[in-house]
């Protein structure tokens, strides 16, 4: 059977749907990570780090709010409704940020894995054919540069302290490492996004670039990153089927709004 050629209007609609999928992935990643990291506010290991961590959590939430804003523009919706009023299983954050915050080593390992992968993704999206997205990404990258420096400094500090710090870091990498590639795993509609230049390179290429970036750092510190979990690379599972940690987080962050979702808060 020969597939019927898609009409231009169908393509337009499919492309908009694919763009929404990309924006939702970007927004939910930063939203969920920002929430998890904000749990450190007030209880970080020391006061200076507390202030730094709160700043980064705010940056992530600010980025999420901006991505939700672009999504709202596409769908004539409201950023808060998109962010808060979805059921837990409609969130499209990646498996890496689905883990609970854990201890400081896990938070830092995850931050470094996420920030290094996100840097590769944003570098490519800065050349997106979607102008509002490309313009936003330029701004986001300025802040993300500092997050990566912070994460790398902690990775190094923990890795170079034999005993408990290094042991905890290794355990954290063991736990969250297999899910790290989920940040860059292909989206279900990737072919369309790449074809239209909205995401100029496919996920497979992003993953290669990311490995080339992190391998020298891991090698220098003598750290192992476990092989990718198959679910973290599969477009059908990399951003769905969330676990108990996210269910808890979702219940918490939607609890006040749930009192009256139509009220102004």
């Amino acid at each position: 059977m020969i597939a019927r050629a898609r009409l231009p209007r169908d393509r337009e609609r499919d492309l908009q749907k694919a763009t929404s999928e990309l924006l939702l992935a970007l927004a939910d990643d930063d939203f969920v990570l920002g929430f998890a990291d904000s749990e450190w506010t007030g209880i970080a290991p020391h006061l200076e780090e507390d202030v730094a961590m709160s700043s980064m959590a705010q940056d992530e939430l600010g980025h999420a709010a901006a991505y939700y804003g672009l999504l709202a523009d596409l769908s004539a919706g409201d950023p808060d409704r998109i962010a808060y009023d979805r059921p837990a299983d409609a969130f499209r954050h990646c498996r890496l940020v689905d883990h609970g915050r854990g201890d400081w080593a896990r938070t830092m390992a995850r931050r470094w894995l996420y920030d290094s992968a996100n840097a590769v993704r944003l570098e490519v999206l800065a050349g997106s054919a979607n102008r509002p997205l490309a313009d936003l990404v330029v701004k986001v990258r300025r802040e993300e540069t500092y997050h990566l420096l912070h994460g790398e400094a902690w990775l190094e500090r923990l890795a170079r302290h034999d005993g408990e710090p290094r042991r905890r870091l290794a355990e954290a990498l063991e736990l969250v490492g297999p899910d790290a590639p989920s940040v860059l795993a292909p989206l279900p509609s990737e072919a369309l996004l790449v074809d239209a230049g909205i995401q100029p390179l496919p996920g497979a290429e992003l993953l290669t670039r990311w490995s080339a970036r992190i391998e020298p750092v891991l090698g220098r510190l003598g750290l192992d990153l476990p092989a990718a979990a198959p679910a973290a690379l599969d477009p059908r599972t990399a951003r769905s089927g969330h676990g108990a940690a996210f269910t808890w987080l979702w219940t918490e962050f939607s609890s006040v709004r749930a009192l009256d979702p139509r009220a102004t808060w």
Partner: protein
Amino acid sequence: MTDPLALDPVLGEGERSRLPFNVDLPHDERFRAFEDHVLAGGKVEAGDWMPDEYRLNVLRFVEMHANSELMGVLPERDWILRAPTLRRKLALTAKIQDEVGHAQLLYRVAEDLGKPREAMIDDLLAGRTKFHNVFHYPTRTWADIGVIAWLVDAAAIVAQQALRESSYAPYARTMKKICWEESVHIMHGRDVVVTLAAGTVEQRAMVQEALDRWWPPLMQMHGPRSEREADRDLHWRIKAKTSEELRQEFLTIYVPRVLELGLSLPDPELRFDAAAGEWRYSEPDWAELRSVVTGHGPASQARIGFRRVQREESRWVRETILVPTGAAA
């Protein structure tokens, strides 16, 4: 956000040179020179000679302030995850980050007076030092977050504005920055309260209930009336106003602002006595204040216990930072 004025030097040019009490004089003469200097409105820097009584009083005052900023984080922190919109969430995390930043600044001021930060945290968690009464109470609803950010911070800022003139210059400088940030918190808190007061019947009831619950601790917050002459902190110009002056100032500014939102205050005696030029109110429960600040408040032990557990869990991180790289931790 930093108030540009906070960067101005507190000391005038004439004061920046060596002061008479820094010269090697017999103790009593030096004490008198110091007292004359402070009573004439002069400032004291961390490296100056100062009488033990002055050092201890400033330390006690600043340490309690630092403890309050640190413990004040906890009631609001519980609501960071639950903030109901993106804007509220960002405002709340930014506010709490400010409070942690204030704690850090104030502990540094106190450290310069000779007490290490870890010792101050130890004393706080062992119940040997105090923090403000309002942070010993639980938060029950989202409206509490509005009332705390608006009225607790307002009551605090009334006191803190007067501290910008403190004789201890490092504290005065720090207060300039803190007051600037607190004024932003008050706007955030008022916005939360106004939104609820203008919202649904349930939202309005929620904010009224929060106000009813927080009002008694707010009336206790500045402390019982005291004799101006007997207060050594006033004598040394560490602070500038008595408890009652601060409370009257708070009532003058904020009672009308609460009432104009159509909310009520749970004190039938509360009114402005025009003839006397001051507010009348039911006598606050001072026994409750004493009990609460000595660790017997409804959330005192839970808060201190929570902080103790968190501190233990991250001890290994602090040790990692303190031990040189490569050494066994």
